[in-house]
Structures are given as C-alpha cells and as structure tokens.
C-alpha cells in the first residue's frame, strides 16, 4: 500500500517535471543578465525592458491578436451555422459527404492544409488578380478555414445532446423559425459557441505551420517572429517573451478555474433551492 503510494507519487513527480522543468528553466533564464542563453550571468530584468521597447514584437503581437479575433469570430459564425445544420437536418442529400468533409480537416496534417491553401491563393491570384499578394488577408482566410471545423464539431455535439423539444415548444408558442433560433437555440448552445470561439482563437494565436505557408513579406505574426528569431539562436528576450506568454496563459487557466468553481457552487445552491421547493 505504502509502497505503491510512493511509486505513484514518484511517477507523478516525473510527469510534472517532464513538462514543467523546461518551462521553469526558461523562466529562470529570462532573468539572466548574460547575453548567452545558456550561461548564467546573474539576475536581471533588462530583457523585459528590451522586449518592451522592441517595436517588432509589439507589432507582431497586435497582428496576431487582430488575425485571431477576426478569424475566430468569422469561423465561429460559419462553424455554428454548419454545426446547427448538421445536427438538425439529418436527412438532406449529401449529408454523409458533408459531415465527412467537415471533420476531415481535423485529422488532416497541417502541412497539407497549408500547402493547399497556398496553392489555392496563388491560383486565385493568377486568375482573378486577388489576392494580389499574400499577407494579412490570406493568413486570416486560412485560419478561418481550418479553425471553423473545430467550432462546427463542438456546436454539433452540443446540438445533438440538446433537447429538440424546447425548439418545438417555442415554435408551438408562436415563434417563427428565426425567432426560435434567436430566442432558444442560440442561448442554449451559447456555452458551446463560446468555447468554440476560444478554441479557434487559441489555434489561430499559436499557429506556425499554416501561417508560414500563407503569409507574405511584412506580415509576421508572433509565433512566426519567435520561430524566425529562434532559428538564429535563442536569445534571453525570447525567454522573457515566452515567460510573459506562460504568465498570461496561467492567469487565464486560473480565471477559468475560479469561474468554474463559482458555477459549481451556484449549481449546488440551485439544487438546494429545488430541493426546498419540494418540501
């Protein structure tokens, strides 16, 4: 008993270490005074200063955020529509093909998606003259294309588990189909839509491969910037940047945890209310 406990704890320790030691060392080295990434030269925060005064990083971050917001929002709108359609119209012609087409990109290697997007944009440029060059627009379009399927999948599974009867009830009470969508369907699946948006946003924020294929000169997103800098050797300001990203992600996870905890407590209170209403 005792023995297996120790064993399990050791395993757990290794597991965590495996994941977090690299991150920790990166954080520690972001406070390195030395210019050499691998030699400790004393504590310093100067790289954060360098980072903040680096216009290139600021520009890349803004660009990434812009692309992520636009692409995830568009992908959410398109993906939600596709998800609802797939869940509701179960018998339209070509449904199997359509749902296959929707889920295929989930398992398609990113390189393939990237190359095909690139070729598509080049062809479009040749025959239509648009897009003239690759850059912001093409990256955003590519991001929409491949993050949409994630939204679709999430929304579709939420729709399938939702009670069909509440939509019928609304219709029965005089709501036309678009009113049913606005008043009932969308509010009920809104948590799924939100998580779809968050997923699309994150995917867009940290995508390197597809962006690499579809971007052009002057359009450097944050992941691309980091990637190209690291190719020239890891510098401490990259460590600082990565540390800030880790910090942001950590705060988000913490906030989500607190939010979930609160929702859990609210649900508990509701259960007690319902129970007391029974008395």
């Amino acid at each position, binding site marked *: 008993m005792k023995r297996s406990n120790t064993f399990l704890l050791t395993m757990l320790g290794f597991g965590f270490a495996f994941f977090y030691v690299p991150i920790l060392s990166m954080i520690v080295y972001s406070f390195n005074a030395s210019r050499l990434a691998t030699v400790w030269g004393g504590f310093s925060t100067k790289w954060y200063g360098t980072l903040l005064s680096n216009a290139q990083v600021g520009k890349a971050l803004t660009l990434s955020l812009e692309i992520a917001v636009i692409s995830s929002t568009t992908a959410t709108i398109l993906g939600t529509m596709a998800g609802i359609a797939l869940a509701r119209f179960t018998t339209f012609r070509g449904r199997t093909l359509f749902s296959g087409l929707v889920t295929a990109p989930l398992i398609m290697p990113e390189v393939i998606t990237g190359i095909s997007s690139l070729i598509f944009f080049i062809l479009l440029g040749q025959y239509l003259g648009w897009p003239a060059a690759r850059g912001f627009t093409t990256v955003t379009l590519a991001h929409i294309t491949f993050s949409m399927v994630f939204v679709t999948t999430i929304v579709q599974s939420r729709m399938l588990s939702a009670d069909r009867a509440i939509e019928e*009830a609304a219709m029965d009470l005089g709501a036309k189909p678009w009113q049913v969508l606005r008043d009932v369907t969308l509010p009920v699946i809104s948590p799924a839509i939100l998580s779809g948006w968050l997923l699309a946003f994150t995917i867009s924020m940290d995508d390197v491969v597809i962006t690499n294929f579809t971007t052009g000169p002057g359009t450097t997103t944050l992941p691309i910037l980091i990637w190209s800098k690291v190719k020239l050797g890891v510098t401490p300001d990259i460590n600082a940047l990565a540390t800030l990203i880790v910090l942001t992600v950590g705060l988000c996870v913490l906030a989500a945890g607190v939010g979930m905890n609160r929702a859990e407590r609210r649900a508990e209170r509701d259960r007690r209310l319902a129970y007391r209403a029974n008395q």
Partner: protein
Amino acid sequence: MTEPLVRIEGVSKSFGSFQAVKNVSLQIEKGEIFSLLGGSGCGKTTLLRMLAGFEAPTQGRIFIDGVDMAAVPPWERPVHMMFQSYALFPHMTVEKNIGYGLKHDAMSNAGRQARVREMLELVQLTPFATRKPHQISGGQRQRVALARALARQPKLLLLDEPLAALDKKLREHTQFELMSIQERTGVTFIVVTHDQEEAMTLSDRIAVMDQGVVRQVGRPGAVYEFPNSKFVANFLGSINAFDAKVTAIGEQISVDVPALGQTVIARAVAGVSVGQSLTMALRPEKITIHRAPVEGANVLAGGVKDLAYFGKDSLYRVALPSGALVSVHAVNAARASDDERLADWDDKVWLSFDPASVLLLTD
C-alpha cells in the same frame, strides 16, 4: 350538426415503411377532455404531433375549427402542446417561460404582464416567478409547462403524458387540478396517456389505440362496460376471457365454454349467429363469490387457489375442476378477522354472475 373543434379524417402517418398511425378518424368537441389511451409505441405522440403541426400526415386531413391544417405551420395553429418532457426554456425564468408565447401576440406590455400574473396564480406559482426551471421541483415544472401552454388561450391544448413524471400521490392530486383548470378555462384538452386509471378519471371521452389504430371511442363507462374487442377489454381493467361457441339465440344467448365445462347465458347482443366462435369475457368484480351452493344459471364451482388481500378488497383466484382459473374481485364490506374471511385458501366456493355482465367479444 355543429362543426366539432377537431376533425381528423382518415389520417395515416408512415416513417419510411413503418406505419405509426393508420387511418385514424376522430371528432373532438369544444370543451371536452379527450384521452388517447394506448400502450407504448402505439402512435399517440405521433398523432398529437400531427395536430400540433410538427409532423405532416402521410394521408388524410386535419381540421381545427373548420380550417384545414395542411398548410398551416405550427406557429400559426391555435393549438398548444404540453410536452412529455415539459421542454421548459432552461435559460428563462418561470415568468419568462410563461410569457414567451405572449411575445408573439399583438398585446401591450401591461396586458402581457397581467396575463402572466394571472397564469402564475392559476397554477399557484407566484412565489417562484423569478426562479429558473432547474431551481424548482418536478411538480412545479409541470405546472409551469401547463401555464405556458395556457397563457395564449389556445383553442386546443395537447398534453403528452402530462403526469408521467410525477410520483403517485402528486399525480392523483394533479389530475384533479388539471380537471378544475380545464373547467375554469374552458379549453379543449387532448390528453395522451398509457395509464388507464388516469384516462378514466380525467376524460369525458377516451380513444383506445393499438398499433396505430383507434380500436374504440366512447365515454369511460361505455368503453369499460361495453368494450368492442378483447384488446380493449383487457387494456381497460382486467378480464377473465375464454373461448366460446354460440349454441342458441333467443331472449338470451347461450354459449358453450369448454374451459368452464358448461354453458353460459349472456344478454342478447346484435351481430352474433349460432355456431359462431367468439370470446366470452367476465370482469373479476362482476362475479360474486359464495361459500354455499347457489341455484340458477351461470354458477361455477371451484376451489380457492390464491388469495390477495388489498384491504378494501381482495382478489381470489378460483380453480375450476376443468383446470381453468377465474379471478374474482370482492369488496371486503364486512370487517372480518383472518379466520372469518369470506373464503380462504383451498376453500370450496361457488361463483355466480349475471347474464348482463357477460361480454361476448367477436374481435
């Protein structure tokens, strides 16, 4: 003749090759509580859904208030439905749920609020107006669903197993509540149920369904006492049924019942002929049990094989010499201790019944 509120004419519904509803014709009058009674999967919900407009009949027509409903979408029908699962909007409060239908009516805000308050009072949920559906109990949810369906003053209210999710005590209480609400509002109810007692208690008329077909329509008493088939007799209450053959027709009808080893006399009915094979059926409560031999026709002798004591009544299973078992339901009218009971295990008893109680079923 005045036009009935609902006229269903030869309606059938197929899902692929499966026929869920077969050639149903019904007329439902204004102000009635009409029950659709039948076993699981017999097409009750499908019929309701066609009335509400969620399914289109494969064949036949439905008229509500004289208007052909074929081209009328669900949101324009003067019909509201109370769903089996209640289908309350989870993200809206009780009062928003109840008021939802009113949003689609041309109505002042104040009028709307007054109507919601009125409905809350009707179902006694005023203190819970601002709760969400998951914050109230099952019985209260059922009442919200009812109030929501009634708020727009439909001509017809469809209730799909309205009481199925409630426990026994609450169900009995709610039955009477439903009836009194129906009386006060005057709305016509069509209630789907598979609980025969519920159907008998609630309804003005009952339609018994079996595998998509309506087997019999009538007042509860008529359907119970004069079932037109073995299926209906068995579905409403219980019966002792035996194969029989008509031997003579006069003032009364004589049938030979091999399982009982004797001839049984029944009241004359139309549509039988000598030599015809049919089912002779007797309801257990129509049989009297005696401790001493009795004279006359329709007397059977046997021994008590089983006895179930329910308090207000008892069920006896009497074995006849031929081996047939007859169930007898007797009210325990007199107070008796265990050893002075009407009859006990292995006691010899005599059973008698009136010719008028004998059911001759040809179907």
